[in-house]
């Protein structure tokens, strides 16, 4: 792809060499986007543009993939991203009630970030521990069999971190 009129973004050496290595292999796009999200926590537009140049792939195609998979984010998440499972088991056990409560506690909606940049709420598909439903995940830490009145304490714990 030819030049695009936007500011450039620096990729770490590791990310750049990863992309270089996978550049011409089939099915590389999802893997590369995973790495990009790993580096930035989301996929900034100028990162998507840079990937488009490096892979010689239309930017539109990249956005097609990013928006197809729930996993990829286009907005920068909060410092502590609260992932609420809404897979079948968690959904039935009240996952959505947890989201509603979090929205009230934090004053934000799903896929938005608190003004201080500390928290964001994300609804995710099954994270694979249905026995613990309903489940939330913060910074990789799992909280299972949750009741909504446990949430203030959990939030307080991460606020102080």
């Amino acid at each position, binding site marked *: 792809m030819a030049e695009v009129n936007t500011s450039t973004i620096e990729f770490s050496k590791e990310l750049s060499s990863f992309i270089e290595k996978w550049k011409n292999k089939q099915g590389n796009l999802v893997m590369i986007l995973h790495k990009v999200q790993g580096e930035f926590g989301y996929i900034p537009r100028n990162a998507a543009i840079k990937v488009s140049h490096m892979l010689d792939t239309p*930017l539109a195609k990249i*956005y097609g993939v990013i928006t*197809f998979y729930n996993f990829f984010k*286009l907005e920068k998440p909060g410092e502590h991203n609260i992932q609420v499972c809404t897979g079948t088991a968690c959904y039935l056990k009240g996952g959505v009630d947890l989201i509603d409560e979090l929205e009230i506690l934090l004053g934000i909606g799903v896929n938005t970030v608190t003004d201080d940049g500390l928290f964001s709420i994300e609804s995710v598909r099954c994270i694979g521990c249905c026995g613990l439903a309903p489940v939330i995940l913060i910074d990789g830490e799992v909280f299972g069999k949750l009741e909504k009145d446990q949430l203030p304490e959990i939030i307080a714990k991460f606020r102080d971190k």
Partner: protein
Amino acid sequence: MKTIEIKINGKPIQVEKGTTILKAALIDNVKIPTLCFHDDLDPWAACGICVCKIEGSPKMVRACATEAMEGQNYITHDPELMEIRRTVLEMTIANHPMECLTCGRNTTCELQDLAADFGIREIPYHEDITELDRDESTPSIILDPRKCVNCGRCTIVCQQLQNVWALEFLGRGHETRMAPAGGILLNESPCIKCGQCSAHCPVGAIYEKDETREFLDAVKDESKHVSVQIAPAVRVALGESFGMKPGSIVTGKIYAALRKLGADSVFDTNFAADLTIMEEGSELVDRIKNGGLLPQITSCCPAWTDYMEKYANDMIPHFSTAKSPMMMQGVMSKTYYADKIKVAPKDMYTVAIMPCTAKKYEITRDDNMWASGEQDMDLVLTTREFARLIKSSGIDFDTLEDEKADSPIGDYSGAGTIFGVTGGVMEAAVRTAYKLVTDKELEDVNIHAVRGMDGVRKGSVDFDGTEIKVAVAHGMVHVEEILNEVRVAKEKGEEPPYHFIEVMACRGGCIAGGGQPYGTTDEVRAQRIAGIYTDDEKSVVRKSHENPEIIQIYKDFLEKPMSHKSHELLHTTYKKRPQYTK
């Protein structure tokens, strides 16, 4: 090709192996309803309306995307299938605003036709319409995602036929929408305004920007002299909007209709096509004779020019500096003609009837479009808008008596008219360049080497002993092949592979432009192309340099091709543009 025997509703028929059920049924005159399918595109199987049964199988298949197999009996219609199709249709309509009366596709909508055929009277489902804003950012087309039925045609056209990738399927499932990369506007994307998305959309989700009222306002304004030109391709397609066959030549009726609509002067873009050939042909000869940069590439198609500036701007030095015929006609109207009839350029309002949505963009694309001192072209209406204007003005198009264009910038040669088809600009240029190079007249003006519908055509023309190598591409997806040959030769320091390259953005050329009447398929393209060549053949003058009005304008005004005045008025420049501005 291997033939197989199948049955359609129990009736044995023979079809070529590889034929889909949909096409096989058509051979037996059985029409299976479709919504997402389009002859120009690979089947996408998005809508589900074409489901059929295979006798002996519990599975239903989509007729558009399933190959017919030897010995099978396909059931295309029965009460159960009709009920299923009705349900699919009802669910589609539940997601589609029922705003038919105010829709740009009222009476030309494929969903409306299906709803009419199926006698849909109410929708048993909860109405669920996407709430997304209309995108009116380009001067050419409007994208209304609320009306989208997610058939995917626009996006597939944009990617597979045009290689532009302005549109993509964003989101998934219920949230899927056709949009540019990442919530930006079409005008911030690489969109080249060719309008093929609008020509392929089955409903009113992408349509041309309607400017018919601007025309009426101009006519109403007594202080304005309204001067109208019509493009080559319009004359062989407009008739379709009035029930005529594709390819019917209605030039004389168009001139008559324009006068009835209030145009003060009626001209023909074909005249300016002849003028373009004089300039572009001379530029080519100059490049050939004086060691200029070759190949020269045509520049009349604004969607192609936009594409080149965004995707292939290393080709800028190869681009002919000649403006498009429309722009030449505009500037000649506001200078040469305005002066002749003693009208100030500012009091002249120029209108072009075009087969093209990109032409709406072209008229303000850069400062060179103000060469007369005023905006050279004030308004562009597509063939579709023009048809509506005629209908709403109470003109009975069929019974109009043929009229002639005005003089002195309305007469045209056969070379001018073939600008409307792929290969036509090349052929017209060869007819004149031959004379300029050899000082002899070409005996057979029919250059078959450059005609046809292959996406890329390469050939050579014998210029009295000198071989002139040419290439033609149409449909943007085919252009890279030729450009890469040029790039490779350049890198290796070899002779350029061609002297002259013609590119048109739309498949078939302007006759299948994004602003033409709906329903364009290769069959329709062939009929319109035949109409254009008939118009050429019945022309007394078939070479641009023999058009008496062209000879006159050089004598009276422009002096000679590539003169100082020509350069000022008829030539332009190009620049690199970013694919994305956001």
